[in-house]
């Protein structure tokens, strides 16, 4: 069985996050020095070879993304850290920034060097005002030590909307516009912030970078599942004994997460379902728990890793009731730009409420399935595309709960 393994949380509890000396004493900023001594293309190649994939949800190969921005010709490029972390039940990015802000800054500085960016922003969730101070202090220290020469890094406070975590909505928000996604392509590495090549990566993604540069791509690629190597931080919530966080290699199974690290279900109750990846995550039944927590393995069972939130439900929970509340969340969080999500999330909530109050029919479930299916591939951005996942996966795996509520 896989053991907990700390890469991004390697300094957790070991250093005073507000003392750069502590970070340096642990070998901090060595990787930046090493990176800057490397040829840019070789550096990007190394990141590619590590097979590090984005930890913000979409799972795109990090080095490849960087190479797009590197190749783009422009007078200005940007590096942006997505620290919006709006997913309920998720706090992994906060953990990293709170306990080891310099690892994020170092990761971003390496990226800036690699792609040729001179400006960067950390877009920090609006509900984390204390983190803005931590980050600003850390940036000031890094500047004083000369680590950020030629890289102007600033912190921006988020606008509060969930959709602002979507990279192009985040970019719009930094530009001072309504936080709404743009259509893609063009993707940010070719046209991002103010139309310039921009790398947007998640906090956890950046936090992996110094270690990869320091220990090498081969070392990193050998950890966990080969197609999605390394570790992943999970935050456990719901009906589980250890409501805390774990960083584990990606070959860990869901079952291990719940029973080994999470300590199982409290009160001797039986497991019913687990939702992984946040509000838009799929609901996973007992029989699929032996799936490793790696991107493609999850995709194969119709699920995602998302933000790494793990929400466990015991046998007493009513699935239809839980999913109705989720549908309400998306009705509220839709930005309203595109028709299928703007109207679809509202209708989804409407029909779920009808079913939940015992007034729905089999035809409503059919309509719901069609609506969810269409939204999942027609909406403009990931929010609307993922919003139906809880509905669709529960209709698939927990149909009995729905049937029990039909008129």
């Amino acid at each position, binding site marked *: 069985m896989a053991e907990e393994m700390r890469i991004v949380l390697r300094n957790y509890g070991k250093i005073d996050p507000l003392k750069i000396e502590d970070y340096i004493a642990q070998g901090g900023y060595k990787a930046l020095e090493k990176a800057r001594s490397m040829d840019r293309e070789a550096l990007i190649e190394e990141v590619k070879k590590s097979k590090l994939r984005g930890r913000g949800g979409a799972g795109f190969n990090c080095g490849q993304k960087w190479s797009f921005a590197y190749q783009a010709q422009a007078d200005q490029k940007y590096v942006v850290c997505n620290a919006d972390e709006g997913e309920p039940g998720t706090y992994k990015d906060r953990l990293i920034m709170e306990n080891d802000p310099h690892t994020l800054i170092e990761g971003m500085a390496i990226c800036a060097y690699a792609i040729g960016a001179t400006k960067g922003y950390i877009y920090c969730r609006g509900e984390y005002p204390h983190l803005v101070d931590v980050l600003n202090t850390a940036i000031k220290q890094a500047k004083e030590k000369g680590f950020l020469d030629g890289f102007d890094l600033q912190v921006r406070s988020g606008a509060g909307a969930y959709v602002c975590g979507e990279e192009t909505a985040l970019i719009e928000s930094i530009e001072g516009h309504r936080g709404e996604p743009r259509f893609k392509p063009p993707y940010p590495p070719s046209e991002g912030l103010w139309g310039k090549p921009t790398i947007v990566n998640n906090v956890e993604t950046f936090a992996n970078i110094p270690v990869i540069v320091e220990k090498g791509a081969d070392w990193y690629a050998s950890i966990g599942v080969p197609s999605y190597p390394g570790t992943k931080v999970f935050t456990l919530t719901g009906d589980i004994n250890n409501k805390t966080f774990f960083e584990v290699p990606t070959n860990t199974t869901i079952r291990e997460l719940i029973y080994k690290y999470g300590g199982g279900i409290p009160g001797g109750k039986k497991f019913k379902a687990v939702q992984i990846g946040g509000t838009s995550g799929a609901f996973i039944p007992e029989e699929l728990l032996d799936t490793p927590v790696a991107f493609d393995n999850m995709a194969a069972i119709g699920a995602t890793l998302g933000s790494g939130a793990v929400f466990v439900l015991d046998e007493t929970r009513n699935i239809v009731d839980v999913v109705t509340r989720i549908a309400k969340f998306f009705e509220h969080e839709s930005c309203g730009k595109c*028709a299928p999500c703007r*109207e679809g999330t509202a209708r989804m909530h409407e029909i779920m409420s009808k079913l939940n109050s015992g007034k729905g029919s089999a*035809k409503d479930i059919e309509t719901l399935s069609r609506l969810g299916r269409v939204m999942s591939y027609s909406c403009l951005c990931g929010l609307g595309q993922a919003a139906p996942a809880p509905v669709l996966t529960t209709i698939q795996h927990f149909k009995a709960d729905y049937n029990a509520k039909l008129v």
Partner: protein
Amino acid sequence: MVNLTIDGIKVSVPEGSTILQAAKEVGIKIPTLCYHPDQSVKANCRVCVCEVEGNRLLQAACSTPVTEGMVVKTRTPKVIEARRTILELILSNHPQDCLNCPRNGNCELQTLAEEYFIRDIPFEHKVRGLAKDTSTPAIVRDPDKCILCRRCIEACSVTQSVYALGLEDRGHEAMVVPTMGKSLMDSPCAMCGQCIHACPVGAITENEQLDELLAAIADPDKIVVTQIAPAVRLAIAEEVGMKPGEMPMDVFVAGLRQVGFDYVLHTNFTADLTIIEEGNELLKRLNEGGVLPMFTSCSPGWINFCETYYPDLLDHLSTCKSPQQMFGALVKTYWAEKMGIDPAKIYSVSIMPCTAKKYEATRPEMQDSGYRDVDLVLTTREIGRLFRMSGIDFTKLEGAPFDSWMGKYTGAGVIFGATGGVMEAALRTVYEVVTKEELKDVNFTAVRGMEGIKEAEVDLKGTVVKVAVAHGLSNARKLMDQVREGKSPYHFIEIMACPGGCIGGGGQPITKSNAQRQVRIDAIYAEDESCEIRKSHENSEVKILYDEFLHEPLGHKSHELLHTHYHPKNKKYL
């Protein structure tokens, strides 16, 4: 070039083309709602989605660039299901009020509902119940019908740089609202009506006043007199199923008599008159060191814009009223006298390509005849409705002449309808007045066409006059900023609020593209060419008007009836 396959058909298109453009090349129609040919891509309605091989997600045809070897399918079951579901979603909170809607029969949503065989919508029909905005006399907004495509916002902000429309709230509570105020009337709205053309549905329309006309026609005590603006004739054809310009003027006049107008006169007459007054005003300013550059003043949307955004430049505006208002002031004085009609009985109706003129006619200063100078302003579209209601077959109708004293016009009056036309008409007259020589070539082609800003220099025997022409308010803004900074090299500037000039006015047949505007412009110049007399100062009825009534340009009577003044719109938020 990029090679791809759409529905099994091979096609080669320039790099940077979208799937939508490529499909059009091979005759495959992909439905759209938020797409507009002259605007930026919005990709928010999603009805244009298609399958692209190798993608789980459907791709929006309007926003997705083609790539080499791309395989696109535009009509698979998956695509059809998606489009129908999206249409059902949109329609489930739409009033579905087609029978009572101004856009019945000319609505992009209605057309798609028909084409996509929408019948039993599984979602509960819920209309938001938002209040209509009837605060202006020109534009009516019905937000319940809005499908949030945002085309009006771009028309208002980008094409017009007025910024009167914006978005409020999020999700299914999102709505388009007047900015900085609760109603359009207290927003910076210039009432140009360009948002009406941009709107795919009936969420923005003109303030319809056909009922008022019908009541006046039915009233035996009222003598209903109409004036037709220069840009109307060629466009009215589109309203009755003909091509732009295909309706002969005399048949149009006959049609108006058929539906009950007692007298039919022409705004082109006062367009010619405007040239005499405005041309002389320009010469006076040039000779006496008056405020320059002088701006034309015949576009009331432009006047609203200038009063709102450039109140410091109002002295530059020609004091000439618009041709509509000159006409209004004369019809109840000069014309009534000539005809021996009691002006109190005259009900003066103007047929305009313009929504802003509905507002202009209600300005308190527009009563110089002692009455309201213009009682009712109807748009080309409203007259189109009246014609369709009347069931006239225009191919069989015999033509009729205009009535006397204010019905004659020249080619110079005609071209008022197109951008650059007022300038060209003015130059034709000013040249001959100043040089006392005959103008050999009356065509000033440099000021014609859809280019946003055009300029020209005219040598008046020693005095070189520099002129500029802008259409669309964002182009006007560029020239105005120059003037404000003291850097404007021009003596005379023509501004039309609407792209293309009045042929693209807010009251014209719903105009879906600039290409359509160009067709109308071509029709205007064809009409000018066909006119025997093409210079305003050669209009025989205008001469009579001066001889018998006005006596001289810029004279006492002119000042009383034909000139006006402007007021800064002190909108607190600007």
